[in-house]
């Protein structure tokens, strides 16, 4: 199928499914939907001709007759029974999504008064004041075809609201379970609003529970108000037949502090778009990411730190270990706008290639319009350090184990930035397994990862 056919099919889907799309969605959402659809008609699914998608060809991933659910599909059985997260000591507020839809039998959460965790659909109706203030304000459907497509098809996802001065101690863990007997395209739309001086930690996990082919297109909008502190951990561990498109748009207000860490452990094709807008002074942002790819897996991290206001600090570090014929791309875009004086923006991308056939394309892209800033970027692509390897072997550690230790150490620099200990331990464990060539299965996900 040509890209035009794919785009036209989406247009048909939109036109024909319009009443289902609009059904149960708020008027505001549907207005945004209309606008986004117009944008999608203009942009379409990005192709290699798009500079930002130069190394990631989405066309084959889209070129497939997926089922698209325009209405909540009743889940057979109890998801809480079917899936439980088995991370020892990871005590979280667990929220399950089914193919991107908020599961209608989620258990009651242990959250402070005033905090809202519910479905996007429900939030659009019941909390329209908050919803309408933020929904569609940070994502860029006018620039990203897949974001436009998400907004046009968005029906559900998770909504999280933390009111002013409230600290949510227990991390909120949102697990999206891809579970379908038919090949499926899932559209998930999340909105997270962290008010002034509030604090929260959010973990997004994705799991594939059946062998079907998946295309998951997720957009999350996150607003972090003044003095708020927010952590976002994204754990990607899907089977080889899954394409994950994950676009995150974060807006930071003055003095806010955001840490995000995107851990891509397994997956057929992964594209992460990570936008941060510094829309107030004295913000601090740490954007980390790690990818472990082998076979013919592909991961593409596109990041954009938009320094619109002065005196903010952004620190970005992505690391990858690549084996076999795996391919990866990294783009680190930093824009320091004219008035954003005293900006500090740092960026690093380090890659360890274990085979001659693995490929990484890494590209820093700095646009600096202010004159009093500190910016740096660095990218490395290397093999295993022979001196370090010999040092370990000279102490009696066999070569295979020594390599393992060095790879693990390489990855650990990103893992140790996780500010939830139990999660950090689990990721360490998964990464170690992964590097040893075992399947780093997360509990019940095993059935579908193991192919």
């Amino acid at each position, binding site marked *: 199928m040509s890209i035009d056919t794919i785009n036209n099919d989406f247009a048909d889907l939109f036109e024909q499914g319009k009443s289902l799309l609009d059904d149960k969605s708020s008027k505001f959402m549907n207005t945004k939907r209309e606008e986004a659809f117009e944008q999608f008609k203009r942009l379409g699914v990005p192709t290699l001709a798009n500079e930002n998608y130069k190394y990631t060809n989405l066309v084959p991933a889209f070129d497939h007759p997926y089922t698209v659910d325009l209405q909540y599909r009743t889940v057979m059985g109890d998801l809480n029974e079917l899936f439980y997260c088995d991370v020892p000591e990871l005590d979280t507020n667990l929220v399950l999504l089914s193919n991107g839809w908020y599961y209608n039998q989620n258990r009651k959460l242990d959250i402070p008064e005033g905090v809202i965790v519910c479905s996007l659909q429900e939030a659009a109706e019941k909390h329209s004041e908050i919803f309408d203030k933020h929904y569609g304000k940070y994502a860029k459907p006018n620039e990203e075809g897949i974001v436009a497509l998400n907004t046009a098809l968005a029906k559900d996802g998770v909504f999280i609201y933390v009111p002013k001065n409230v600290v949510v101690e227990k991390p909120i863990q949102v697990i999206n379970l891809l579970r379908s007997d038919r090949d499926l395209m899932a559209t998930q739309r999340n909105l997270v609003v962290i008010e002034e001086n509030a604090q929260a930690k959010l973990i997004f996990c994705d799991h594939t529970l059946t062998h079907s082919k998946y295309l998951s297109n997720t957009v999350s909008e996150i607003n972090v108000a003044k003095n708020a502190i927010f952590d976002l951990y994204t754990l990607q561990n899907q089977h080889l037949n899954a394409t994950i498109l994950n676009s995150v748009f974060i807006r930071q207000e003055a003095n806010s502090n955001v840490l995000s860490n995107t851990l891509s452990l397994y997956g057929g094709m992964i594209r992460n778009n990570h936008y941060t807008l510094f829309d107030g002074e004295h913000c601090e942002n740490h954007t980390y990411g790690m990818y472990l790819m082998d076979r013919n897996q592909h991961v593409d991290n596109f990041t954009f730190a938009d320094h619109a206001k002065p005196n903010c600090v952004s620190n970005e570090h992505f690391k990858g270990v690549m084996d076999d014929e795996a391919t990866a791309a990294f783009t680190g875009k930093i824009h320091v706008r004219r008035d954003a004086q005293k900006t500090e923006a740092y960026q690093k991308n380090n890659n360890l290639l274990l085979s001659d056939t693995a490929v990484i394309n890494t590209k820093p892209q700095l646009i600096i319009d202010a004159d009093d800033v500190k910016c740096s970027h660095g990218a490395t692509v290397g093999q295993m350090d022979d001196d370090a390897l010999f*040092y370990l072997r000279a102490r009696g*550690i066999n070569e295979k184990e*020594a390599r393992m230790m060095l790879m693990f*150490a390489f990855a650990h620099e990103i893992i140790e930035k996780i500010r939830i200990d139990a999660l950090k331990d689990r990721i360490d464990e998964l990464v170690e397994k992964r590097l040893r060539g075992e399947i780093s299965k997360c509990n019940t996900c095993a059935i579908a990862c193991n192919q």
Partner: protein
Amino acid sequence: MLSIKNLHASINGKEILKGINLEIKPGEVHAIMGPNGAGKSTLASVLAGRELFEVTEGEVIFEQKDLLDLSPEDRAKEGIFLGFQYPIEIPGVSTVNFMKTAVNEHRKYKGLEPLKASDFLKLMRDKKALVEIDSNLTNRSVNEGFSGGEKKKNEIFQMAMLEPKLAVLDETDSGLDIDALRIVANGVNKLKTAENSTIVITHYQRLLDYIVPDVVHVLFDGRIVKTAGKELALELEEKGYDWIKEELVK
């Protein structure tokens, strides 16, 4: 214990060792001295199995085994320890994990069970005390951000943990102030038994005030050109290496 016969080794086609002969018996301390570029560190690396160097001729027998047939890790487990001139920093690998893996690999080689966590920690504590190394060093990543002296102390600590039969200490004194030198030398002396042997490679005599050798060799241009008792070190200190060169010319 160790018998080196006519050992030749080269790197990138350039011959560095040009026929080394050396015999070391259990319990002996040998010092190998010599000017820069003589091949001292190459000899240490070749004994430890660094693949960068190609052995072109000769043999090395260690405890009745052909050492040159063994991988670096197997040489270590047979009981050879190389104290590095420039210990490598390995960010992200904790010293504890590093040593635990190494100790248990050695145990496995001898057919022993891995140490229990509590026994391992006790062993660490004992050896730390023996070589006077600070816990704040062993709690960090291997050598990361260590000063020159701290790195050398860490080498001796690792040696204490692994209890080698033959320790090859490559310029262990370089970069050490007098206090660090004394601590490092004390560590080596405390680990000394009637069974194990030591090769001390050094440029200066200073270290040999603390680690007293039984035999001193002078390595020059890839060959051992002079062998004598510990008094040779003093003579070298006093007169430098030039007189040896002159003697060779004669």
